[in-house]
């Protein structure tokens, strides 16, 4: 049975070239970048190249890139780093209702610690309410953190517009974007978006797990979360994950054409998927913004439980998600769907399809056929049975 992996927003399969590069690094370029001898210098040079590569793709300087263990650490590092650095009496921090748990949970934590937290609502497609944002920013606002590409819906925020609103009202306010689902999939320019900080991760782009990076604009004061040997300009101590960083670098290089041909190909794939589903199954809803990230497709079916559908697809070798894999451990599972006001009858029956360039048109047909079969047979079991 061919596996059709449609959960690329959760994680991706490491590209063979990336794995090869990492293996080579593990056994050959094994020095500690902080070591004074030439093995150390060689390792340092290797990660320096990746730093530059990331900077080039974000349109910033390489000194503004810091390596982390991934998205969750990056988000924590920025949010906690900004808040802990200020320590004023009156502080306000702003985020949106559809953030990843690694942002939302940190905000909730601070809310319980006497910091004013404002959570912006979103429209039915998942765009944040810019008027509400404008009204919310004041002199005490030290941070706005917004998810650039939503992990469950794929909705892309208008970052230049948001940046402009923030900086017009309070130029000192730090603007952070969680760009884990967008990096190397959607082009970004931190200058035009007026960003002060950005988080990215390796394993969403066919790189390894356990590595990521943050961009922090020069002059932005951040208190380090992890102290120690002073690596990463004292902002993130700990021996650099050299093989991970090299793997991330290779993954970025492999995606140099992603913004052109691949983006278009995935967009066509997503459209085909939607059309097929709509033709074969009734009682469906496509969530999010049609012009959002083509890599993510959020679908709801009435009278079906998403989790059951997921398992039934799994038995046919098709792997999807019921939302964010990271929040499937949580009690409050569907806060994103709640925020966009999805009707109750559809909420339970929601799955997320996330594409990669490995998916073909045939895969889409197979997957949709399987979904149609599963949905139809599951619906038989929960049909209203008034006459019995």
């Amino acid at each position: 049975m061919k596996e059709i992996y449609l959960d690329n927003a959760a994680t991706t399969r490491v590209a063979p070239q990336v794995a090869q590069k990492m293996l080579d690094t593990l056994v050959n370029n094994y020095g500690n970048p902080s070591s004074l001898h030439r093995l150390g210098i060689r390792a340092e040079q290797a990660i320096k190249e990746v730093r530059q590569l990331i900077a080039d793709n974000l349109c910033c300087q390489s000194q503004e890139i810091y390596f982390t263990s991934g998205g969750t650490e990056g988000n924590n590092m920025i949010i906690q780093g900004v808040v802990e650095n200020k320590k004023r009496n009156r502080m306000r921090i702003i985020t949106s209702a559809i953030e990843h748990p690694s942002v939302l949970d940190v905000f909730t934590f601070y809310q319980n610690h006497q910091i004013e937290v404002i959570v912006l609502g979103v429209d039915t497609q998942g765009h944040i309410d810019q008027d509400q944002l404008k009204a919310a920013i004041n002199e005490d606002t030290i941070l706005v953190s917004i998810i650039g590409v939503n992990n469950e819906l794929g909705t892309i925020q208008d970052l230049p517009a948001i940046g402009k609103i923030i900086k017009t009202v309070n130029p000192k306010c730090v603007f952070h974007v969680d760009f884990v689902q967008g990096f190397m999939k959607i082009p970004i320019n931190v200058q035009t978006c007026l960003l002060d900080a950005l988080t990215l991760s390796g394993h969403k782009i066919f790189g390894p797990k356990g590595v990521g990076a943050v961009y922090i604009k020069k002059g932005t004061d951040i208190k380090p979360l992890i102290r120690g040997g002073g690596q990463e300009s004292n902002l993130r101590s700990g021996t650099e994950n050299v093989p991970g960083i090299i793997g991330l670098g290779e993954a970025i290089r492999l995606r140099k054409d992603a913004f052109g041909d691949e983006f278009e190909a995935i967009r066509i794939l997503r459209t085909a998927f939607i059309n097929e589903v709509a033709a074969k199954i009734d009682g469906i809803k496509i969530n999010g913004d049609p012009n959002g990230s083509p890599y993510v497709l959020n679908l709801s079916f009435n009278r079906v439980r998403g989790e059951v559908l997921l398992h039934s697809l799994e038995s046919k070798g098709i792997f999807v998600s019921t939302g964010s894999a990271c929040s499937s451990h949580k009690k409050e599972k569907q806060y994103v769907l709640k925020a966009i006001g999805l009707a109750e009858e559809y909420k339970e029956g929601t799955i997320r399809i996330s594409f990669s360039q490995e998916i073909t048109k045939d895969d889409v047909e197979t997957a949709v056929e399987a979904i149609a079969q599963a949905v139809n047979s599951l619906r038989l079991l929960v049909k209203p049975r008034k006459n019995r």
Partner: protein
Amino acid sequence: MEHVILVRYGEIALKGLNRNYFIELLAKNIRTTLRSVPSAKVKKIQGRLIVNVSDEDLNRAMERVQKVFGIVSISPAIVIDSDITTIEENAIEQVRSAEDIKTFKITAKRGDKTFPIKSPDLCCRLGEVVLDNVAGITVDIHKPDLNLWVEVREQTYMYHEFIACNGGLPVGCSGKGALLLSGGIDSPVAGYLMAKRGVEVIGVYFHSFPFTSDRTKEKVIDLAKIMSQYCGKIKLFVVPFTEIQTKIVEMCPDRQTTIIMRRYMMRIAEMIANNEGAKAMITGESLGQVASQTMEGLAATNAVAGMPVFRPLIGFDKTEIVKIAETIGTFETSILPYEDCCTIFVPKHPETKPKVSEMLRSEEKIAEMMVQMMATAVAESEVVTL
């Protein structure tokens, strides 16, 4: 000087002519739990079991032995020659090395009547030498900080710690029972309590993929693994239940699906129990806890069972069950949130007062095909031994 664990068995000692059988079984169960502690050796002495174990394995071995049913208490002890000078030296050393004590007491027992000093005299004599040789310490025979026990037998055992265990009977002495294991909080506790009365537990879990995920199955396996620390080896049957469940939901009235499903679970569990030579079934049901556990509900499920169904939790409140689950260590695993998708089958208004006659009428339509489906489910069960 050797380190041993003294094992005291309570109820077993009363078992008359069968006593030896019980003790052998207990020794065997202790040996099984100590498989992974190679230095441990179990032997019988009068009225006790002794586990010889190397110094560094002592804590690990005690942790395991404590969980074996049929044991009232254990004591880590030293074993020395039954020679008065050696006994005196060690008594002094034991009291001296004890931390934070101001008062002590000696409790000496002469089991070996060839030993020249009588128990009360030995108490006094040892008390005196300890007083003479350990500074800053006095005797308190009522509430001593340290009560040093000295048992003189062929060899002499010295100890001062009593660790209470779970009591009960050695697993296996009361036959075999098939436990319906769901993955929730209750059923592992029910299995634990029956194992405590000497029942060898086999597990039966009904797997309804895709309605319950493979994670739930993993969770049930994990639960059985935790239970096996107390219950000994557990043979777990994973019964493929999807088709039967689907058929019931399809063909039977909404309100009755839960009870009918439970009746079929019971039937299948009994088939497995019979195959395995089990003489009873065990469930985690507690009266009135949920709609299917009303007296009428229990009666309706019970009606399909030919063998006795043990429900050790029948009179327990949820809080009491949770407490036991926490103590035995299954709670944390039980509450992992995987099985919730199964709720698609929970009817909006479940029957709380089902009648057996009505159930039978509803089952008529499927009874015939179920014969084959149940046989297939039993035959295709996956067996995991933990």
